[in-house]
């Protein structure tokens, strides 16, 4: 597309084009400034933060904030740093990514390519699950987890993530497989290729783009979740988002902005990493099916 022939551009065209770039540039600044402030603040000393401007570049690099955040951040009276909570988050988010993606792929495959009586109804009901506001299910879910003995535990939280991830991942895969050529399935049926063999050898390997979408969606949503995590965990099972809130809240005396900023950046790093690695597939996946490639 970049070598598209545009013909000769008039002055007006150039002006409009320039205007578009200016507007885009303003938006880029608007979105990047908070990140800039966070990064800059996290490497300033507390003195410098209090005396200098918010936007100023640090005079000297000071990694006190990062050190404190990672090693000594306190939740309540315990000061064990962020690592334990990062691990909690990693466990919960990874399981809540892998399991719903795998099950959602199988669900979506069955609901689109091997339809059966009532499959559309089943899909409709499953879809309904995607649109229920989480606040509504908070109490019933908590009491259910209490009933089966998983309350205030990482297991219970992960279970919740997995259950509420499934409608979304099923939806993604179903809509992806729906545009699969139906003749492929017909050919497989005639050739005696079964449900699972077709899934494993043909459907799944062809669905990398939507898998990436599902992974990014599940990982960022569960990693960033605060609602379920703050309700369904206690101190030692808290995820990093809950812990981050506590770090910032419990600080007494002078507010250590550099520590807070460093902690916030650390908490956000894994999702940034996922985006950077898989981001380019993300857009491609969202576009898949719109245009036959």
């Amino acid at each position: 597309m970049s070598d598209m022939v545009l013909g000769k551009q008039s002055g007006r065209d150039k002006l409009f084009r320039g205007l578009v770039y200016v507007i885009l540039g303003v938006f880029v600044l608007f979105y990047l400034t908070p990140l800039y402030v966070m990064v800059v603040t996290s490497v300033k000393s507390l003195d410098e933060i209090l005396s200098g401007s918010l936007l100023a570049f640090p005079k000297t690099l000071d990694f006190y904030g990062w050190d404190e955040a990672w090693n000594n951040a306190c939740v309540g009276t315990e000061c064990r740093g962020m690592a334990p909570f990062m691990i909690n988050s990693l466990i919960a988010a990874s399981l809540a990514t892998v399991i719903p993606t795998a099950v959602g792929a199988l669900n979506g495959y069955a609901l689109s390519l091997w339809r059966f009586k009532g499959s559309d109804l089943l899909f409709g009901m499953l879809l309904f699950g995607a649109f229920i506001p989480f606040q509504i299910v908070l109490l019933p879910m908590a009491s259910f987890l209490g009933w089966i003995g998983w309350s205030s535990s990482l297991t219970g939280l992960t279970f919740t993530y997995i259950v509420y991830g499934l409608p979304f991942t099923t939806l993604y895969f179903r809509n992806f497989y729906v545009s699969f050529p139906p003749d492929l399935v017909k050919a497989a049926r005639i050739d005696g290729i079964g449900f699972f063999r077709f899934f494993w050898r043909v459907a799944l390997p062809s669905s990398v783009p939507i898998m990436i979408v599902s992974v990014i969606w599940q990982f960022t949503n569960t990693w960033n979740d605060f609602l379920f995590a703050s309700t369904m965990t206690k101190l030692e099972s808290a995820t990093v988002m809950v812990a981050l809130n506590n770090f910032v809240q419990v600080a007494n005396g002078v507010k250590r902005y550099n520590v807070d900023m460093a902690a916030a950046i650390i908490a956000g790093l894994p999702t940034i990493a996922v985006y950077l690695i898989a981001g380019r597939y993300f857009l491609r996946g969202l576009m898949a099916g719109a245009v036959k490639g």
Partner: protein
Amino acid sequence: MATLEIVNVTKKFGSVTVLKGIDIVAADGEFLVLVGPSGCGKSTLLSAIAGLQSNDGGEIRINGIDVSEQHPKDRDIAMVFQTYALYPNLSVWENIAFPLEARGISKAERRLEAEKVAGLLHLTEYLDRKPRQLSGGQRQRVAMGRALVRDPQIFLFDEPLSNLDAKLRVVMRTEIKKMHKNLGTTMVYVTHDQIEAMTLATKIVVLRDGEVQQAGSPDDVYHTPKNKFVASFMGSPSMNFIKGILRRNEVGARIEIVRPGGGEVALDLPVSSNLARQFDGKAVILGIRPEAMIDAKSETKDGTYQRIEWPLEILEPTGADTIAVLKSNMGDDSEGEMVARFSAKTSATPGTLVSINIDVSAVCLFDAQTEDAIFHASTVGKSVPAPILLSERKA
């Protein structure tokens, strides 16, 4: 090696009856072609044979056994799809050998089988490529390879050539015909292209609106069509129709034709006296193939030609000969055009009346009401030569 019998098969989609009791028999080794316009039910019938769709009534028998309730994989059939239906993530050889994988055949053996089939189809050098790296014709061959590797009892083809360009279509058509000759397996082939039907089939079944119009050899269907629909569907350019009134006379009957733009012409036809009596004074439709209508200067070998004058609209030179588009007297419906085959060096002038020689030994007659064929001149036989008569009557 298998016989296929389709006995009174019906299929409904909601309130629409797509197949209205189809009866077809294909002998062992038959190349059966199902042909008809879109929506005639030919693809539905193929799906029913394959087992991709159930039939509501009737039986589909392979080797005498009703398979209507059997899963597609248990029918021992292979199918080639219009879209090729290749698995995009698998290489060519994996595509070809995929049906064997389900049967638990080892990878080494599968590869060997795929290589064997690929050799037959000139695909050897592409075995490790992906389908998207192949041209349309090569993909088509891979799809055929996947069917071949199974060595099934019956091959099914669902418009396999319609996604190819014209030149490749002819090449692949020949390859399919060769394949049938070498294997001798029963094949069922669906197409809307009557040329494919004519060239490939040992038996053609013409379908319309879920009913069999005619089943027979290509020769039968072409020369002795059972009704006007079959006559117009088979053949390209299609058969010309002229309406007229039949009058009994001493040689059989004479058809009196009102020419478009005024005037009247007539042709004598060697019909039986019974038929002549039955249709005396009634409206009939005369069917003439374009190759049986030639310009007056062309050589007319035997004495079966009669000459009429008819208004010429335009000439379309094709090189080998010239297509003459004539005015029709059938009214404003879709058949409002007639085509004759003139010699390449014709001197006819468009917009005027031209002399045309009509081979009355190759014409058909249809009842104007029912559109059923009532007479095929080709069945009269050479022993009864039609009289040479210049039977034109100027208006």
